[in-house]
């Protein structure tokens, strides 16, 4: 699939004549001139938001600035036929990246050749404490869903929960829920509760298929919480799960159950 032509179509629909001519003059250059163009892009390209955010290659562009999209396009034009020089050129960009460049590089991972090679870059973005860099791997990016090991995946989701980030924006967040992650969420909640804090209620959606006696106790605790969000999450988990104990628990909270079943409560309402 030639994603660069799709990206170019998207760019064309938004770029000014001046921007377009700059982009066209750079797009078919050597690796080195593309590298320079990638760095220099904000000097020539606006920071308006991308007008048409519909996904390409699983990457959607909500709240992207236009220069970020152009940078992704320029990277997609790097000639990958010689693996060594291709990788070296992009590694150099990573190693010297300013924050906005780092965000663009991480956003480009799903478009790069030799996807396995970029795994450390992807997991390092998860390790990053620079908010926008972390967000670039975690949200609107299919790379983790497609390529992360369960361990790496769980780290990313947990870090989102830990930092109160909107986990519903993670591509594949429901599909890749797993028992180990459910256990870790439970454990994180215990730590937070000991400190008199909470975890975002939406996180409990990820335990639905992995309920056991231990996690059921958490659900019972949520029902007793003073936060209405916690009580809604507990209700929604009990309705969705097959775990028998949860159905028993639900009988104690008919009022909540009714509101959930009539769509007054929903997971969407718990998105943060």
């Amino acid at each position, binding site marked *: 699939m030639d994603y660069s032509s799709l990206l170019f179509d998207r760019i064309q629909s938004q770029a000014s004549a001046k921007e377009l001519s700059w982009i066209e003059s750079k797009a078919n250059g050597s690796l080195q001139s593309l590298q*320079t163009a990638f*760095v*220099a892009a*904000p*000097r020539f390209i606006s920071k308006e938001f991308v007008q048409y955010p519909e996904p390409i290659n699983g990457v959607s562009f909500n709240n992207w600035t236009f220069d970020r999209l152009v940078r992704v396009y320029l990277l997609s034009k790097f000639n990958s036929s010689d693996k060594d020089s291709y990788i070296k050129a992009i590694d*150099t960009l990573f*190693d*010297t*990246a*300013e*924050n*906005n*460049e*780092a965000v663009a590089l991480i956003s480009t991972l799903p478009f790069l050749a030799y996807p396995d090679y970029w795994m450390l870059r992807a997991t390092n973005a998860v390790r990053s*404490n*620079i*908010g*926008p860099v*972390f*967000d670039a791997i975690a949200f609107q990016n299919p790379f983790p869903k497609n390529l992360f090991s369960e361990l790496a995946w769980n780290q990313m989701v947990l870090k989102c*929960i*830990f*930092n*109160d*980030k*909107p986990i519903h924006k993670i591509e594949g967040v429901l599909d890749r829920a797993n028992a180990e992650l459910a256990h870790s969420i439970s454990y994180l909640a215990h730590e*937070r509760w000991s*400190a008199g*804090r*909470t975890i975002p209620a939406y996180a409990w959606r990820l335990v639905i298929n992995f309920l056991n006696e231990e996690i059921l106790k958490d659900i019972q605790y949520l029902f007793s919480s003073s936060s209405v969000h916690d009580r809604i999450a507990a209700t929604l988990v009990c309705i969705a799960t097959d775990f028998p104990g949860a159905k028993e628990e639900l009988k104690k909270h008919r009022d909540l159950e009714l509101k959930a079943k009539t769509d007054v409560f929903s997971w969407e309402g718990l998105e*943060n």
Partner: protein
Amino acid sequence: MCQKHSEISQNPSHFEGSAEEFKIASTVQANYTDYIKGMKFFDPHIHMTSRTTDDYTALIDAGVVAIIEPAFWLGQPRTGLSSFKDYFSSLVGWERFRSSQFGIKHYCTIGLNSREANNEALAEQVMEILPIFLYKEGVVGVGEIGFDDQTAAEEKYYRLQLELAKEANLPVQVHTPHRDKKRGTELSMSIALEHGIDPGMVIIDHNNEETVESVLEKGFWAAFTIYPFTKMGNERMVEIVKKYGSERIMVNSAADWGISDPLAVPKTAALMKIKGISDEDIRLVTYQNAIDAFAQSGQINAIDFESPMEVDQNLKFNGNTVLRGGQIPRVEKNSIIIS
């Protein structure tokens, strides 16, 4: 960077003002912020990498809305290229992000500092990676470069970097030496002129009473570092503004890992206010002149910090990573309870 306390007595105040002024200055300092309410400041020289989060909080509380962090040394010489690369990268990466968490816009200048220019083998390698960083967003100049011991190697790399600045059309932030400052300053300026650089693109830093006149006369920007013991005191600074006015003069803290004061700019503004300098002159030397000088890079958009910075929720709370999950962003410094 006060290595020699003997230097203190060698640099006595040249302008001590009247007895009355002295009294005011030494009695009102407790609530100096009362004098600068509503003022905004731009500190064009501060090494935040060496400072704590408390300093960031104090800066924004005092009205400092934007800063420039010049690249310099670490207090000891680096031993390899990667250390330089990681340092430059942190100036446009982690430190820039850290600053944004406190609502302060962070810019930087990138360069090979004079001390480390003396390791020629390493300096050659650093020169190769400088262009990669000079063209990045928010890099507002080549700096801080110039002379320290005034060696041949320092001169060589100063000249080479002036050429880089010329090619990138970037301002130059020039460090002037602690020792033999006057000669070093004159030499820095004459070399810049020799390379055909417009003096309006050059900020001569760490001026004092002995150097200012020549710097202004030749058309360069004159920056003053308010730094305890080794550089300027702010009472002397007030006298300089009284004498030379506010054109092409700017004040900075150069706060780093030495005994320095990150609040030097707002404190100097308060002292100027107390001593009768006009609000407009204060605004020029503690805010606007620095912006005008470094905005010639094309990398400063005043909208980013002119209105009270809208802290992006996505960055500040949800995305908050300087502050860990579930914490509130501010700590009450006087409270014994840490929650």
